[in-house]
């Protein structure tokens, strides 16, 4: 499986859009890593300076408090990417666990879980988030990650359950059991690796979705709050300066577009690499 996984990744890399996405992500990760070393303090204010347009001194300009926008956008990458990464990891773990349980258990456990998932899928995720976030005046970052992560497993659970049912129908579980594998070994050595395609595609799509959601709730004022730099929060902050200092809105938003686009490109390339027929 690991061999074919590498081969799949190589196929995704040979796809020009996939490669563009991977390179964009690498550049973003690099910016996020190097930001503290190379760029000025994102919280350093210069009230006399105020908002100035992009120039040689401040490549992305400064915000209303005279803070360097390039530095804030780069530091925002750390916040946005780590929120998305952690939340999606949580969602995937939950989704895979619940999907495997439902698919293996079958019967009323499966029916009950899937009815519940149906109901959760019917509520637009944004509304679940808004209801959960509205009670906080200032939601702690850890709680935000937890809330986003806990609301993102429904689709994955459904997909993984479907894959498990397919593998079961192919006699996969029986074969593993016949070879003497216990239930845990069957799950972790045989089932999960074979659903890896579904999981990877869901992960890349999920990160893009979560970045948009985090930006969205921050824009509505219930997500990441100042002074923590997040892209959505920066747009929220800049909103009333939209016409007088449009660069304050433009750059954090452009960072979101690039990240989400890169994730979707990689996701498409992975899907095509896993299933060459669908391309």
């Amino acid at each position, binding site marked *: 499986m690991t061999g074919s996984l590498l081969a799949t990744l190589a196929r995704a890399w040979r796809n020009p*859009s996939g490669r563009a996405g991977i390179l964009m992500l690498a550049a973003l990760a690099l910016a996020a890593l190097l930001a503290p070393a190379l760029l000025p303090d994102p919280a350093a204010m210069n009230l006399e300076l105020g908002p100035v347009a992009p120039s040689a001194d401040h490549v992305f300009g400064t915000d209303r408090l005279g803070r360097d926008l390039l530095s804030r956008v780069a530091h925002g990458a750390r916040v946005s990417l780590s929120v998305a990464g952690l939340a999606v990891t949580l969602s995937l773990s939950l989704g895979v666990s619940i999907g495997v349980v439902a698919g293996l258990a079958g019967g009323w456990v499966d029916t009950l879980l899937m*009815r*519940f998932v*149906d*109901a*959760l*899928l*019917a*509520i*637009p995720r*944004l*509304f*679940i988030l*808004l*209801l*959960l976030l*509205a*009670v*906080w005046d200032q939601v702690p970052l850890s709680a935000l990650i937890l809330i986003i992560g806990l609301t993102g497993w429904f689709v994955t659970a459904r997909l993984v359950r479907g894959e498990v049912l397919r593998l079961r129908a192919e006699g996969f579980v029986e074969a593993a059991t016949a070879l003497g594998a216990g239930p845990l070994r069957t799950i972790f050595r045989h089932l999960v690796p074979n659903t890896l395609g579904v999981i990877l595609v869901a992960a890349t799509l999920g990160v*893009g979705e979560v970045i*948009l959601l985090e*930006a*969205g709730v921050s*824009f*509505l*004022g*219930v997500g990441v709050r100042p002074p923590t730099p997040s892209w*959505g929060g920066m*747009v929220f902050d800049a*909103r009333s300066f*939209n*016409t007088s200092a*449009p660069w304050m*809105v*433009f750059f954090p*938003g452009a960072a*979101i*577009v*690039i*990240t*989400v*686009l890169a994730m*979707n*490109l990689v996701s498409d390339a992975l899907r095509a690499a896993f299933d060459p027929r669908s391309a």
Partner: protein
Amino acid sequence: MLAWLARRLALATVTYAVVTVVLFFLMRATPGDPLQRLDDDRPMPPAERERLEAIFGLDQPPLVQFQRFLGGLVQGDLGTSIEFYPLKVRDVVASRVVPSLLLGTAVLLVNFTLGVWLGVFQARRRGKAVDRWLTRIALTGYAMPSFWLGLMLVALVAVEWRLLPAGGFTSPLLRADASFAERGLDVLRHLILPTLTLSVVTIAVTTRYQRTALIEVLRRDYVQAARARGLREARVVWRHAWRNALFPVLTLFGLWLPILVTGSVFVEEVFAWPGLGGLAATAIGSRDYPVLMATALLASGAVLLGGVLTDLAYVWLDPRTQSA
């Protein structure tokens, strides 16, 4: 067919019941209470707090609150708005329906004309540079936060170029004796930017569905046969192939129904469009739980109804799927 529909509707009803329970307890399970925000500036006297709690039923245990909520729900009574007190939630919501429908219809029109046309255009040129670049452009639009695109369009088109209004539903400067046509034109001008924003961020889905479906159909033998008979390519594509490739796109309607009902929270907020999505954004800002709850219930209902309609379209157009 009828038995199938009855079963499908029963299933959706059960799901909606679970949705209602989940939404209620989502709202109640979290720390803090809806009146907390009123304490922000200066603490409320206890007597006043008790009076307000009684009005919104917050003095009751959760199960009693749930019972009351359900009782109101079946009678179409969703309680009283906190932000627009003493207006009923029902009336606040009702006043927002028409603008939402208007925006949703406009977006659907763009999606099903321009989106479908682009999908067909790309399918006919699949693999060529123009196809790849159109896909990339559409994906870029799909990656944009709608509020960001909206703000950028306001800064550029409304403020810099002064071409269109920056927001709202009608112009406050419109003369009181303006004719019906003038009023219509005014609303139309306000509609353009929100529609453009929502279309840019959604059109990738329509074009992708249409492109994939048409490529599939163009491979079939009967299309080759039509070509072999010497028909012009445009006729082969539109008259022979496209009809059979329209079906997956029609089922997308189920996916778009929520946009039609609740509009877009972000776009309506940015453009001050007085629809249901904008209402949800206002409700979150003022922590107006009853209103937020109502919009969430409406949005979920639209999702479920969209699912039923999609399945219905499948069964209607291809009766073999009924068994599934």
